[in-house]
């Protein structure tokens, strides 16, 4: 039995690793193995023992490489754990390396430190609020982490309120923690979101797309009606326009953007601008 299993394992091990540079912007799937620029010249990580010694072997010529979401280091192998497009960002300093990550289309949010999110207050207990952010655990939010809040001057936060805040603690072993102030103690747009408006959910991919610096969708939406809009990295969007009708139109457009090509979107926007 064990022998037979070993035969199967042996015959399958020949899955070739591909160079990360060669598959940039292409779709990668879990189980695939990638080679970093520093490893391409060798025969892959397996033959590390036979590689000629180099003087600068310690400092790899490729520079420091950071593996983002969807990639996993296993020894000196780089494995893919999510399906999506492989992306790469050159480092600021310019000498090789940079950041590699997999851009995947998912709906479930996993808290990341520094992300701005929209949460819903679900409970008040003592001096912390519990905030639902759509992750696997509610985040905690101290009443002191609002602009101008002191022990005597408590912020007015009720259960059910929407909070726009930022994660200061987010790792897999601890409860995530949010704040509504930046490092200087300023609100900087964060805090409790006003009474009216509409909250809805979209996929995380669309949110990232909308928050990209040169997003066409947002510019086109902005031309349509004057509006207030908040994007949470957890896939939540809060929008408010002058009338309820305009708010609903905006929400429907943004939701539909997920299933429209650029041309279809342009048609819709031009039709709305006429009416």
């Amino acid at each position: 039995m064990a022998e037979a299993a070993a035969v199967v394992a042996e015959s399958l091990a020949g899955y070739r690793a591909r160079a990360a540079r060669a598959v940039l912007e292409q779709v990668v799937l879990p189980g695939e193995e990638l080679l970093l620029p520093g490893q391409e010249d060798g025969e892959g990580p397996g033959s590390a023992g036979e590689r000629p010694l180099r003087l600068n072997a310690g400092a790899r010529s490729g520079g420091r490489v950071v593996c983002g979401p969807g990639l996993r280091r296993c020894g000196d192998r780089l494995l893919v754990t999510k399906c999506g497009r492989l992306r790469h960002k050159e480092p600021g300093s310019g000498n090789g390396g940079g950041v590699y990550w997999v851009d995947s289309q998912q709906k479930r949010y996993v808290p990341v430190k520094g992300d701005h999110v929209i949460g819903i207050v679900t409970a008040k207990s003592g001096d912390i609020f519990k905030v639902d952010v759509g992750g696997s655990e509610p985040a905690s939010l101290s009443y002191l982490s609002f602009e101008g809040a002191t022990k005597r001057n408590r912020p007015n936060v009720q259960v059910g309120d929407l909070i726009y805040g930022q994660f200061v603690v987010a790792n897999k072993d601890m409860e995530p923690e949010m704040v509504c102030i930046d490092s200087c103690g300023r609100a900087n747009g964060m805090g409790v979101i006003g009474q009216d408006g509409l909250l809805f959910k979209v996929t995380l991919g669309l949110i990232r797309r909308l928050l990209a610096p040169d997003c066409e969708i947002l510019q086109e939406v902005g031309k349509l009606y004057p509006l207030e809009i908040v994007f949470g990295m957890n896939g939540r969007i809060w929008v408010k326009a002058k009338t309820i009708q305009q708010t609903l139109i905006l929400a429907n457009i943004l939701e539909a953007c997920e299933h429209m090509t650029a041309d279809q979107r342009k048609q819709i926007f031009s039709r709305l601008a006429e009416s």
Partner: protein
Amino acid sequence: MAGLELLSDQGYRVDGRRAGELRKIQARMGVFAQADGSAYIEQGNTKALAVVYGPHEIRGSRARALPDRALVNCQYSSATFSTGERKRRPHGDRKSCEMGLQLRQTFEAAVLTQLHPRSQIDIYVQVLQADGGTYAACVNAATLAVLDAGIPMRDFVCACSAGFVDGTALADLSHVEEAAGGPQLALALLPSSGQIALLEMDARLHEDQLEQVLETAAQAARDVHTLLDRVVRQHVQEASILLGD
């Protein structure tokens, strides 16, 4: 096995396939908007639907939470109209519970559960039409659903069944071949590393023949992987085109 010839002298099976040939596979990802991940698969006449929720908070008692990894909760059910004879209860019977446990074992091996401690991942699979190889269809559907949900995995899981008739190993058994009562092996494979996530066999088989059957099942699972790989690539490509890449 009165009179039924499962493998003809020319090497063809009852439905006209060769010994190592798969049935036609068609799959779709992202079939539900509400779930975090979903997929539908047809392997011949076997049809299965898988839905994934998670990683989310532990439902029910918090005592079930694991401090170092996520809890994988699998539920199998087969529709009352899935078999020739109408079923009474769609889920909760012994067979469904066993299948749920097997799916759980398979996906605990494949999903990187240590990345989401104290949380829960739900995988619900429903068989809409059962025509042999339900376990394999469930695993393949659930893999696609987990991928759709974006849950980190060590590797793709691909499953296939195999049987043994007249000295020949048959891949991807249909209902007729299963009902004949020969040995039947279900294999879930992590194709790129070649590791086995689950191996199960009904009935007796001589040890000498195990290797042949196992190799047939593994080859079939790799073929399934090639097909599913194509489905996933196409799905991701379509989704990213819509987002304007």
